[in-house]
C-alpha cells in the first residue's frame, strides 16, 4: 500500500453569508484508508469533501495533503480525482475521450494515453463501450465511466460524492462490493460521502459522522455502531434506528416509568438519561417491562414488533417464532451490556 494520500483537516470553518455550514472540522485520514463521511443531508459532509477537492473555499482552517498545506491550491494542482453524484461526464465526448481527458490535459503521449485509458476501462468492465457517448449509456455504465476517469490518473486521493445514490437497489449492492475491491487493489486513499449508514458501515475502514456541521464521532464502523457517542448518532446508525427512551438513572439502575432495567454503568448518583436499546437487543420473555404490541411487521426472516410503553413506541426485532399477536401484552428486557445511556441534557454518551 502506498504511503501517499494522508489528509489532515485542521479546524475547517465554512460560512455562507450568515449561515455557518462547518463549525471547525478536524480530521486525520491515513494513507490507503477507505474513509466515509456519513451524515444526514445538510450536515456538511459534501462541503467538507469539496473543500478537500478545492472546489470550495474555506472560511477558516487549513487542508493538508501529505503534509503540504493545499488550502489555497487550485483543484487541478492537488492531484486528486473525484466522482460526482451526477457523474458529470462530458456529453460531447465519447467514453474514451471522457476517460482520456485528465491525461490529455497534462499532455501525455498518445500511445501511453491509449494504454492507460484501456487499462482503466478494463478495470471497471466498460472496455467494450469506449466509442459510445455518455447519453447512450445506462446509469450504471455512466457511473463506471466516471470511476474510470478517476482511476486513470492514478491520483493520490479519490473523492467520491454519493457515487451509488443514483443506481437502483440491486446494482448499488453489486457496485458497492466492486468499489471496495477496486479500492483495495489500487490502495489509494478514498474519501466517500454518503447519507446511507448501511453503505458507510459496509464499505468503510473508518468513518466520521457529521451532524449540523460538526463531526460528532470518528471511528471504525463497528466502534461507531457499538458505542455511539451521542443519542443522535445512535439514532442515525442502524436500521431500524435505536430506541431512545427518557428515563432516570440511579447507581447503575435505570427507571422507565415504574420499571427498572439494569445497566452496566458503574457511576454513582442520580440523573436524567436517555436509554438507548437497539431493536435487535430487545428480548421478549416472561419477565421484564410490560408493553402492549401495537403492530407486527413480518420481514420474512424476522419480525419487527412495535411495543407501546406509555407514549413511547419501542421497536423490537425478534425471531419469527413469536407466539403473541397484536394487542397482546408482553414483557421485554435487554442485557445490561446492550443498554446505552446518554445524558438527557447534552445527549452525550455516559457508558464507558
Amino acid at each position, binding site marked *: 500500500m502506498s504511503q501517499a494520500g494522508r489528509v489532515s483537516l485542521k479546524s475547517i470553518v465554512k460560512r455562507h453569508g450568515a449561515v455557518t455550514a462547518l463549525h471547525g472540522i478536524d480530521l486525520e485520514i491515513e494513507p490507503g484508508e477507505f474513509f466515509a463521511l456519513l451524515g444526514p443531508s445538510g450536515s456538511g459532509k459534501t462541503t467538507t469533501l469539496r473543500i478537500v477537492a478545492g472546489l470550495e473555499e474555506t472560511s477558516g482552517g487549513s487542508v493538508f495533503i501529505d503534509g503540504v498545506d493545499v488550502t489555497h491550491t487550485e483543484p487541478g494542482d492537488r492531484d486528486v480525482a473525484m466522482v460526482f453524484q451526477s457523474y458529470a*461526464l462530458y456529453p460531447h465526448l465519447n467514453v474514451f475521450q471522457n476517460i482520456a481527458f485528465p491525461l490529455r490535459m497534462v499532455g501525455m503521449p498518445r500511445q501511453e494515453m491509449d494504454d492507460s485509458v484501456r487499462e482503466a476501462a478494463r478495470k471497471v468492465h466498460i472496455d467494450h463501450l469506449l466509442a459510445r*457517448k455518455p447519453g447512450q449509456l445506462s446509469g450504471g455504465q455512466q457511473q463506471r465511466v466516471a470511476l474510470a476517469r478517476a482511476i486513470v490518473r492514478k491520483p493520490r486521493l479519490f473523492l467520491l460524492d454519493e457515487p451509488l445514490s443514483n443506481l437502483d437497489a440491486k446494482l448499488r449492492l453489486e457496485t458497492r462490493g466492486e468499489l471496495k475491491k477496486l479500492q483495495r487493489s489500487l490502495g489509494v486513499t478514498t474519501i466517500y460521502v454518503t447519507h446511507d449508514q448501511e453503505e458507510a458501515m459496509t464499505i468503510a475502514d473508518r468513518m466520521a459522522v457529521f451532524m449540523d456541521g460538526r463531526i460528532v464521532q470518528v471511528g471504525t464502523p463497528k466502534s461507531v455502531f457499538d458505542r455511539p457517542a451521542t443519542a443522535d448518532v445512535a439514532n442515525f446508525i442502524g436500521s431500524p434506528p435505536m430506541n431512545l427512551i427518557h428515563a432516570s438513572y440511579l447507581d447503575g439502575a435505570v427507571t422507565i416509568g415504574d420499571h427498572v432495567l439494569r445497566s452496566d454503568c458503574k457511576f454513582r448518583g442520580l440523573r436524567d438519561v436517555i436509554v438507548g436499546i437497539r431493536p435487535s437487543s430487545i428480548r421478549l420473555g416472561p419477565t421484564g417491562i410490560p408493553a402492549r404490541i401495537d403492530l407486527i411487521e413480518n420481514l420474512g426472516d424476522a419480525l419487527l414488533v412495535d411495543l407501546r410503553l406509555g407514549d413511547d413506541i419501542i421497536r423490537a426485532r425478534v425471531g419469527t417464532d413469536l407466539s403473541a399477536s397484536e394487542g397482546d401484552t408482553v414483557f421485554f428486557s435487554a442485557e445490561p451490556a446492550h443498554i446505552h445511556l446518554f445524558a438527557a441534557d447534552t445527549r452525550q454518551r455516559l457508558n464507558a
Partner: protein
Amino acid sequence: MKRSAVANAVLIGVAGVFLTIWTFPVLWALLTSFKTERDVLAYPPTLFFTPTLGNYKDVLFGATTILPNLISSFIVATSTTIVTMLLAIPAAYALARLNLPARRAGGFYILATQMLPPVGLIIPYFLFLQKIGWLDSYKGMTLIYLTFSLPFAIWLMVSYFEDIPREMEEAALIDRAGRLRAFLYIVLPQVSGGIAVTVIFVFLNAWNEFLFAVVLGGNNVRQVTVAMFNFISVEQTMWAKLGAAAIVTMAPVLLLGLFAQRHIVKGLTVGAVKGGGRR
C-alpha cells in the same frame, strides 16, 4: 383509425393554410422576379408568361446592380456578428456563473433595450455618429447594430450557459484543465448549438435592418435593403427588379439557415448528467 385519418387530414389542411399565407409573398416575389415589368402590371395577373432572366442580369450586373450593396450588407452583418459573439459569449458565461447582485436588474435592462422602438433612437444615434465622424462608415453601422444585438445575444446565450451543470466544469477543473481549458473544451462545445442560433439571429437582424441603414448610411455604406428601396421611386416602381433583388437578398440568409440547422440539432446536449441520459 378512421378518426385519426380525419384528424390528420384536418391537421394537414390547417398547416397548408398557414404555409400558404407564409410562403405567398416569397412565391409572389419569386414569380415577379421572372416577369417583365409589363407582365407585372398586367391585370388580371398572368399566371402563364414567358419567364425572363433579365431582371437578375440587371440587378446583378446591369446599371442597377446591387452587388456592391450586398457586399456592404455582408461586411456590416459579419462584423456585427463577430464583435457581438466575441463580447456576448464571455459576458453571458459570466452572467450565468457569477452571483452578481445586479443580475436580475441587468437581465431586465437587457430585455428593456429590446422593447425600445428603434425610431426613437435614430436622432441621438445620428448626432452621436456625426460628432465622432463615423456616419456612413462600416465601424459606425457596426457600433449602432451592436447596441441592439449585444444585449439580445447575451440574453439568449445566458440560458444556454445556465443549462450546463456546474459540476461538469468542476470535474474539468479537478481533471487539471484549469479555468480557460475547462471553458474551451467542456463548456463551449456544449453551447455550440446556442452559438449557432445566436449567430443566425444576430446576422439576420443586421442583414435585414433598414431603418438605421437608410438614415446612418450613405454613399460609402449603402446596404442592400437601402438599395432595394431605390427601385421604388416617385416616377416608377420597378417591381420585377425589386422582386429579383429580394430573391437575391434572401438567398444567403436561406443558405445560412440551412447550414445552421444541422448544427443546431447536433449541438443539443444529450443527457450527460445522469437522469437525462436514458431516453
